[in-house]
């Protein structure tokens, strides 16, 4: 075997909690994690074989069977779909005569779909062997197909294919306040740990990842865990930006790296942590090397490592973990499970991560944006943030604007900004709907554009997807239900089965094969998921359906067959295998309903 497994394992210190990282390295080396490799890994790491196989089976970017030498994955986000992603995907499938998800017989190429790759401002996008390619066009697809046919090594592909654009269209407090490396840490050290936490609390900073929990409260709980006594404490930066339509963390890490790392270090100082962990989604490979270089630079500058900024006893360093394709790992306890090298299943809570987090130690998990804001508060004080925003939402929000707008990109506004203002600035016309906060957020209709982005009104983790009046909202919602079915971790019954049933019913409805019974069942299934799911994914998976049923009911009714009982069995579809076997597709080989 060409694979040097022991070298890979050694690189990770033989630590089973690094399993996801080890498996990523095996994927890079081999293209898949073969069953004998799983066996060998399990015995080397001293864990059960089933555990390793279970992890491989959980993550989208880990495979136990060989994929193509070139693994092509098209982003299936709705913005990619609406900008022609499906047609381009079909073009490429046709070029290689493949079905979606299939591997070519010669093993050269496989073409599949993946959830949003976070390039919604420059879609349609794809990943080839993990590398991101944006702004796809028929010409680009043709060029990529030729490179694959010629078996050109990816490091010899034209550089311009991999260029990721940056569109920071509006800056406010966070994106326009300069900070020199070390300034915020110095201010925190001068103020003291407890006073820094107080300052954060007084600023009213709330988590920017969606839930909006008080950051100061979280830090205080972590610092006070186990009686405030000595314990290993951790600061985790949640950069698993998986919510479709969100790409702000991509830009923050690309252009405000120091600010984010400074925020992590401030958090580490405040709660008494020695170690920070960044959980970065695998879809952003272009960030890996610059981020590692930046960490090294900060170590050399005394901003990480022993006695940070000369503060005796303040030892803090940051480690980078890369995800492997699982939206649910954005949920903080699932993220921690993943950091520990396991399947990303959300934990039962309580206990919460602030007392029993990473390796059962007190852990603060904060969103990228939250940490960046925290750095500025450490430097400039609580009032700096309080001066901006609304009563219960101090500061600003960075929005990822995409879809039917003239200028997609990053827009930062004070909290309280009306949705209509964002639309105007981004150049939206004839807006039919806006999905704020991504599929798990809120779908706003055209009569709600006066509503405001804030925790009091329309909270948002950052996604802001715009749909104009030419769009079929049913197809939009169908895309979202497909997303949740793909990303449900499968732990609990309501979400595992409910997301799949919702996606099936939406598919039938969009195809014009739905009945009133489907509508009733759809409402029931979403209600069951909301009431009894294990975590936020299941609780919110029905949101787009509920909103669409309430706000876009005519779109559903137009597609309905006026039947109470639905025809799940499609006679014509049932003939498909026979047509394929006999290579026929003429009228006689189809079941014609009108004649029957």
């Amino acid at each position, binding site marked *: 075997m060409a694979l040097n497994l022991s070298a890979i394992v050694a690189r990770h210190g033989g630590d089973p909690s690094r399993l996801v990282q080890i498996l990523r390295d095996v994927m890079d080396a081999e293209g898949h994690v073969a069953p004998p490799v799983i066996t060998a890994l399990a015995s080397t790491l001293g864990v*059960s074989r*089933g555990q390793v196989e*279970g992890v491989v089976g959980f993550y989208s970017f880990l495979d136990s069977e060989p994929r193509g030498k070139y693994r092509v994955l098209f982003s299936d986000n709705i913005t990619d779909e609406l900008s022609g992603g499906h047609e381009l995907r079909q073009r490429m499938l046709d070029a290689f005569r493949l079905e979606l998800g299939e591997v070519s017989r010669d093993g050269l190429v496989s073409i599949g779909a993946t959830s949003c790759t976070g390039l919604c401002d420059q879609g349609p996008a794809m990943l080839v062997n993990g590398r991101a390619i944006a702004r796809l066009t028929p010409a680009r697809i043709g060029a990529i197909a030729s490179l694959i046919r010629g078996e050109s090594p990816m490091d010899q592909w034209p550089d311009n294919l991999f260029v990721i654009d940056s569109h920071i269209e509006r800056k406010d407090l966070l994106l326009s306040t300069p900070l020199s490396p070390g300034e915020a840490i110095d201010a925190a050290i001068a103020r003291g740990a407890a006073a820094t936490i107080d300052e954060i609390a007084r600023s009213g900073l709330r988590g920017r990842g969606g839930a909006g929990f008080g950051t100061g409260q979280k830090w205080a709980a972590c610092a006070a865990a186990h009686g405030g006594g000595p314990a290993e404490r951790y600061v985790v930066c949640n950069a698993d930006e998986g919510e479709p339509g969100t790409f702000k963390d991509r830009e923050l890490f690309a252009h405000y790296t120091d600010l984010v790392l400074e925020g992590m270090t401030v958090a580490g100082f405040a709660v008494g942590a020695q170690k920070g962990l960044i959980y970065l989604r695998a879809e952003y490979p272009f960030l890996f090397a610059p981020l590692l270089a930046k960490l090294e630079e900060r170590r050399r500058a005394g901003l990480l490592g022993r006695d940070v900024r000369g503060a005796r006893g303040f030892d803090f360093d940051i480690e980078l973990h890369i995800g492997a394709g699982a939206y649910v790992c954005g949920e903080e306890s699932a993220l921690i499970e993943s950091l520990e090298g396991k399947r990303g299943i959300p934990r039962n809570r309580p206990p919460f991560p602030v007392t029993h987090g990473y390796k059962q130690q007190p852990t603060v998990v904060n969103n990228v944006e939250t940490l960046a804001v925290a750095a500025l508060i450490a430097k400039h004080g609580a009032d700096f943030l309080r001066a901006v925003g609304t009563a219960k939402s101090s500061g600003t929000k960075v929005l990822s604007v995409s879809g039917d707008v003239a200028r997609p990109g990053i827009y930062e506004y004070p909290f309280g900004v009306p949705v209509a203002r964002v639309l105007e600035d981004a150049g939206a016309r004839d807006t039919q709907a806006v999905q704020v906060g991504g599929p798990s957020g809120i779908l706003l209709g055209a009569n709600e554009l006066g509503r405001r982005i804030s925790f009091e009104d329309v909270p948002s983790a950052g996604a802001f997807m715009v749909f104009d009046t030419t769009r079929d909202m049913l197809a939009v919602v169908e895309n979202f239900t497909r997303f949740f079915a793909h*990303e449900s971790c499968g732990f*609990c019954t309501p979400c*595992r089965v409910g997301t799949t049933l919702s996606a099936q019913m939406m598919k039938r409805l969009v195809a014009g094969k739905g009945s009133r019974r489907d509508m009733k069942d759809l409402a029931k299934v979403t209600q069951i998921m909301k009431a*009894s*799911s*294990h975590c936020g994914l299941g609780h919110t998976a029905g949101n787009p359906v509920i909103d669409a049923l309430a706000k876009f009911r005519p779109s559903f009714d137009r597609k309905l067959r006026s039947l109470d009982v639905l025809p*799940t069995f499609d006679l014509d579809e049932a003939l498909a295998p026979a047509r394929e076997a006999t290579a026929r597709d003429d009228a006689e080989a189809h079941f014609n309903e009108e004649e029957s």
Partner: protein
Amino acid sequence: MTAKTFQMDGHDVPFEEGQSILAAALAAGSYVPYLCYHAEFKPHGSCKVCTVKVNGRTQASCTTPAREGDVVESNVDELNELRKNLVQFLFTEGNHFCPSCEASGGCALQAVGYELGMTTAHYSPLFPDRPVDASHPDVLLDFNRCILCELCVRASSLVDGKNVFSLSGRGITKHLIVNAESGKLADTTLSVEDKAMSVCPVGVILRKRRGFKAPIGERRYDAHSISEVAVAHPEDEAK
């Protein structure tokens, strides 16, 4: 000394500190439907069939610690309808053909279905492709009936110390696997004495050559409903 109590459906239920709502209710003779719970293992709350309302909020009762003064709703139409739907989800997800199943009459899924008045699976069946594993000399695995309760996973790991069973996949493709490179049960260390052999609430893990040893009509839930059995023998339910 008076024991601590919470209220469930208008009755006081005593509990010990740290006890879950479900365990306390069963011990007090009040049945709450469940599938993935087992008194001998730490509950993980995946099936959600035991969902109750605690002070108005829905919670899995197996993982929610009882607290003094809590007001719990359980045997109410809204929750029984929710539970029935979850059981229908499980029937929809797998391949469950009770009339030809060896576990019929002794199956918790079937019994809870009866208990909740379920007459059909309601939703369009998913008909997953789940080949059986007959490789082991003494044991047959019929994955078609698996409801992913993880009781065998937990029993094999925690009691038998063997880790014969694990889960792989994600979402609707989540599935039970065995700990062998071949993927076959014959290549694991499972033996018929293992605890993992006796915890399956449905008909996945079956002893060979024992088929229909207990005649239909004389099986666990034939004479008494699961609500009676669970409360009469809370300790050995699902054995």
